[in-house]
């Protein structure tokens, strides 16, 4: 095994399935995977997926990226897609469960999402999209990993699986981080450990990444924050490093877990939060 960093963290020859591939973090994840040699099977719901994938195919080659536009809440369609991926991909080395709906329907940034008001439908969408779908993807695509006796599963959780959002962060703003987000992401951690324990003997590893504040300051969607929003200052001052993270600052962690650099790590949660949770 080569210990040169370039080879140790290389994904050359590996196929990676990534959900939420065209989202704020997903776009950087996709680039990090592609720049380091992976074949990318990109899943996403928005139309943006197809335009992003077109660009990646131009840059890295058509055969390096497969795109599947899907609304995972349609569980029949999800199953059909997973069957199709199992059939047409000769190998699956890495699964990255990154997608999570961050909008009004899951109660983000609306009074309707508060602890007092959160609806059954919101809770359901958190646990269906954020927990059940990852488990279904692993059930279906994991068969290939078990056959190959090797695989790495990476679940994108959040620091809010460990600590609660502080209400004072949101005072006087339109912003709100709903309870179903914390709860479903914490459940994803338990699932990660369960998976690590039961499939470790098959050579399959399962770990989670817990990002801290990586506010989307680049887009203008329902989950983005304007660069001059005072909320950002509150976030920054809450961290030890006194700033929010940039998506590229998760790339190293992702490459570490996806590559053979982490072959003895399983069942763990890697916290990348600028020190938020240690004080």
């Amino acid at each position, binding site marked *: *095994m080569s*210990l*040169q*960093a*370039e080879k*140790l*963290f*290389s994904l050359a020859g590996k196929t990676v399935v990534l959900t939420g591939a065209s989202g704020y973090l997903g776009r*950087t994840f996709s*680039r*990090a995977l592609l*720049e*380091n040699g992976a074949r990318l099977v990109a899943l996403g719901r928005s139309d943006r997926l197809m335009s992003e994938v077109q660009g990646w195919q131009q840059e890295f080659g058509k055969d390096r990226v497969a795109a599947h536009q899907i609304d995972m809440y349609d569980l029949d369609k999800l199953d059909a897609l997973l069957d199709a991926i199992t059939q047409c991909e000769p190998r699956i080395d890495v699964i990255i469960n990154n997608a999570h709906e961050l909008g009004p329907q899951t109660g983000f940034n609306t009074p309707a999402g508060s602890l007092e008001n959160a609806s059954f439908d919101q809770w359901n969408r958190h646990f269906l999209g954020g927990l059940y779908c990852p488990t279904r993807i692993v059930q279906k695509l994991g068969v290939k990993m078990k056959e190959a006796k090797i695989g790495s599963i990476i679940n994108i959780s959040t620091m809010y699986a460990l600590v609660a959002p502080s209400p004072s962060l949101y005072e006087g703003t339109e912003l709100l981080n709903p309870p179903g987000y914390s709860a479903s992401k914490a459940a994803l951690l338990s699932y990660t*450990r369960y998976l*690590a*324990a039961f499939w*470790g*003997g098959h*050579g399959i*590893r399962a770990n989670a990444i817990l990002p*801290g504040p990586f506010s989307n300051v680049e887009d203008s969607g329902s989950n983005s924050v304007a660069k001059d929003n005072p909320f950002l200052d509150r976030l920054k001052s809450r961290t*030890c*490093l*006194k700033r929010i*993270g*940039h998506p*590229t*600052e*998760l*790339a*190293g*962690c992702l*490459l*570490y877990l996806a*590559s*053979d*650099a*982490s*072959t*003895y*790590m*399983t*069942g*763990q949660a*890697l*916290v*990348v*939060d*600028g*020190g938020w*949770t*240690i*004080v």
Partner: protein
Amino acid sequence: MTEIIKDPQMPQLFDLTGRVAVITGGTGLLGRQHALALGHAGAKVVLLDLPGSKPNLVAQQLSQTEQFAAIGIAGDITCEEEVEAAALKVLQHFGRVDILINNAANNPKMEGTLGIAWSRLENFPLAVWQADLAVGLTGAFLCSRVFGREMARQRAGVILNIASDLALISPDQRLYRQAGVPEDQQPVKPVTYPVIKSALLGLTRYLATYWAEAGVRVNSISPGGVANAQPEDFVQKLRQLIPLARMARIDEYQGAVLFLCCDASSYMTGANLVIDGGRTCW
């Protein structure tokens, strides 16, 4: 402050060219592996270890066979003056220090040993307690103070503390049991090891917050046991406690060490990476 890297391309992300790394216990089993991880990524490496371990010679051999810059410094990290002197030597030789790995620890092998009733808590000598803490904890404090001060001065640097899975869980003394040995003679993993390793997690968080604004990041790893020709019955018992059902290979921590010492982890501080084959997740 570390610059944010706009392009996640690996060679830059994991590159340590021009940086100087000090590794305590640098001639040891894992210390040498840390040196390989950082040296191959472009760092100049300083092996700081006791004179008896011949750090000069080991560094010379490393730089010859591995083609990176390495020097050895003989010194006792439990002695304030010697740590200060070592820092002077590093600065004289390389002009800077960017990375410190607090790796040194006494780690007596308990598996497969007999007649070591001294390791049992009831008998554990105060002198051994003090000697173990002096190396594993006081040494880490002194090195962090001296080398971290330089990093804070240059507004950039990384400290990595080598903890253990035994910082999170207690040793399972059943692993070390020998058939036919009376209860009060059974070998055990000494109390000092998990105590020191747990304390290193506290030191990690303290230093991470203390020097956050000075641009010094501080993290730890918690590795599991490394396969090193331990007795088969010990390995068999240990395997059952680990989801991956094996001990670690000697080179399996290099990825984590490099990751935490380079800019790929620029937003990570105060964290602990557990690399234990899953032992603590179930």
